[in-house]
């Protein structure tokens, strides 16, 4: 009647302990757990957990992710026009759910806080039997939930998380990241910036004073110093400072001629707006036009900055105006259903859901270790970013990175960014033990409780 649920690990370790005595029969009778794992789907359906920010400053990105994920579920279940499943290079998915099981989902609110994100992920795993967790719009929760999924023995398909640590210092065997990262932003942006603004530039950094800010600042400054730029100053700014004027005002006098705003979300909107108000766009320094760079762009956020984004360089994971078949299919499918084009946050989680489902199909089982094996070193195409590799060493996707610029003459409210260059994957690839990513270990795959 009852069933002890114990992770394999603690059994191996603690079988001598008194508390496990009750478990003895289970330990010795059941060797069947090799095929057993957390939340093994037994009915006619399988549950995925969509953990996105619904409250807090990233709520709009979270809402867009939820839309894309609902679309992915429709497509997996064979409803709708199939979206990128038609252009995806792997043809394992048949539109009859995953392994014939209908896909269902549960949702949770990360509140963009590590605690809340973990609580809602845990409830999806413990209460609703979710076998995979995806979604999220910042790195703190992504790293926290990834560690949780590793412990619980389910797969984590990271959403929008850009800090190096997700697949660097804090990488986990059960976690995968499709989104690009700070290093890639630097590697893609530096050559474009050099071409546009010249090699003799002096950069001033305003950096968000938390983890993502540090890794991104490091990545951009190292990459730009590689093409000959000089770093004049780096100043840390508090999260949610609101008004950045006191940080921006001294920039012009510092001898710098480029301002790099290592901010995301609301902070990016505000610091950029402030910088433009202070006339930095029209200023001259060292005999050159003063320029502003925003390493990580988001169209949803660019909207908040209005006209201020015009002409400003940045990088992005994906943009709806890409001309390839995959992007077109996704934009059409999403746009027809919701009436506006998808954001990069929506795109990345859609891909992650499809990639997960495909890996299950190919491995023939929902067993997380099988899924991990199927995803490691998996090469695919047709999901909007060109040929892509899911590297086994750190579970990071390697694909083309887009360098974009705020459009001077937008034709619609969605048409804010134009693609300047598609930096090939080769150029943004790095060894998995690169110093910016050092100190992490994937460990072994965990299938959870038996």
């Amino acid at each position, binding site marked *: 009647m009852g069933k002890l649920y114990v992770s394999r690990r603690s059994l191996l370790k603690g079988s001598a302990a008194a508390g496990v005595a009750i478990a003895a029969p289970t330990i010795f009778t059941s060797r069947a757990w090799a095929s057993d794992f957390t939340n093994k789907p037994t009915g006619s359906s399988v549950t995925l957990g969509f953990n996105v920010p619904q409250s807090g400053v990233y709520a709009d990105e979270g809402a867009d992710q939820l839309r894309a994920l609902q679309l992915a579920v429709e497509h997996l279940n064979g409803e709708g026009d199939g979206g990128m499943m038609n252009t995806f290079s792997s043809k394992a998915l048949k539109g009859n759910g995953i392994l014939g099981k209908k896909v269902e989902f549960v949702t949770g609110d990360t509140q963009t806080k590590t605690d809340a994100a973990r609580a809602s992920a845990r409830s999806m795993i413990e209460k609703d039997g979710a076998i995979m967790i995806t979604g999220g719009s910042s790195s703190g929760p992504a790293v926290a939930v990834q560690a949780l999924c590793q412990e619980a023995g389910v797969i984590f398909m990271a959403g929008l998380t850009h800090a190096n640590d997700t697949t660097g210092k804090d990488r986990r065997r059960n976690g995968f990241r499709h989104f690009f990262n700070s290093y890639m932003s630097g590697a893609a942006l530096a050559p474009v910036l050099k071409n546009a603004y010249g090699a003799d530039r002096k950069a001033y950094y305003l950096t968000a004073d938390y983890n993502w800010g540090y890794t991104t600042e490091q990545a951009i400054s190292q990459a730009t110093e590689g093409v000959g730029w000089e770093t004049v100053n780096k100043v840390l700014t508090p999260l949610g400072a609101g008004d950045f004027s006191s940080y921006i005002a001294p920039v012009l006098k510092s001898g710098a001629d480029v301002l790099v705003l290592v901010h995301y979300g609301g902070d990016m909107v505000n610091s950029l*707006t402030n910088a433009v108000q202070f006339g930095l766009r029209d200023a001259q320094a060292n005999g050159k036009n003063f320029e502003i760079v925003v390493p990580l762009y988001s169209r949803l956020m660019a909207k908040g900055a209005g006209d201020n984004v015009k002409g400003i360089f940045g990088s992005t994971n994906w943009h709806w105006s890409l001309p390839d078949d995959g992007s077109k299919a996704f934009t059409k499918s999403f746009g027809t259903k919701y009436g506006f084009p998808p954001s990069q946050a929506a795109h990345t989680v859609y891909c992650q859901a499809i990639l997960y489902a495909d890996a299950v199909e190919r491995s023939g089982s929902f067993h997380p270790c099988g899924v991990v094996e199927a995803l490691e070193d998996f090469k695919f195409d047709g999901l909007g970013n060109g040929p892509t590799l899911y590297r086994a060493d750190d579970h990071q996707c390697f694909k083309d990175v887009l360098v974009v610029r705020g459009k001077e003459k937008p034709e619609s409210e969605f048409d804010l960014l134009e693609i300047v260059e598609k930096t090939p994957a080769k150029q943004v690839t790095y060894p998995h033990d690169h110093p910016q990513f050092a100190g992490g270990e994937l460990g072994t795959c965990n299938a959870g409780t038996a």
Partner: protein
Amino acid sequence: MDVIILQVLNGLDKGSAYALIALGLTLIFGTLGVVNFAHGALFMLGAFCAVTLNRFLTLSHQVVDPSRTDFLGNPLKVEVRYIEEWLGPEIGGAIIDWSVPLSILLAIPVMALIGLAMERGLIKHFYKRPHADQILVTFGLAIVLQQIVKYFYGANPIATPAPEAFTGSFDFGVLLGFEPFSIIYPYWRLVYFCFAIVIIAAVFAFLRFTTFGMVVRAGMADRETVGLLGINIGRRFTVMFAIAAIVAGLAGVMYTPIVAPNYNMGMNFLVLSFVVVVVGGMGSLPGAVAAGFLLGILESFASMSAVIDLVPGINQVIIYLVAIIVLLVRPRGLMGRKGVMED
């Protein structure tokens, strides 16, 4: 020298917002004895008055333009704004351009109404309740107001630019004889500062030179005696609450071009403005204004990179540090009366 002037100027600007919010907060506290945790939400509502007017002025209908296509390849539906259609692109465009200052006209009645409704409907019943209850009920109200705004406007910041004439900046340093680019000051920030001064002056003048203000000041000092004189102080206090709401709302309206408003902006200011009020001295109007400017300037200085290098993280905590020091050294704040709110 120029660096110092620069940061003082920046601080004045930040301080203007703090001072306006703290002024309203103190007004409510001083007159009604109520700790209003929804005051930040009033600031946010003011900002959304500007957003709403902008939305309203840019109401449009769609006209299909067959020569162009949208992102799905269908014929593009071009948005045509009614106001430009009716008044011509010249005047219509100008009205839209000036939507932020125009929002003042909308914000005054709207905020007054909200203030009246709040006081009559909710706050009135809490005069005699403990401060903890006041904090809780107004905090609950702040959450409700925020969520309602989020429901209609989403969570992303919404761009609300200043009129074309006030965008850009001028070189203040050159006027003072420094080298170019040493002190750049955006026009709109100058407008905001002057606006704040006018509002503050108006509130003080109102309290000082009108009979109404005199009664209110008397009520602030000794409510019971004023009541015994047969003056209906309650009604006047309601009006004061509405005025405080208007002040917070106007501060919000004019702030939108500086920081794009989102539903959460009030909460960011709330904690800060309480610190400002306490530093200034509970119940002291000049104290609140002075402390607002003082803390704004200190915050600016703490954000200089030379200072941060010296004391890492100082820019994160300066406001709280000042609050702690002031409260320990001079518990009634800069200009507060002794014993206010001590229990």
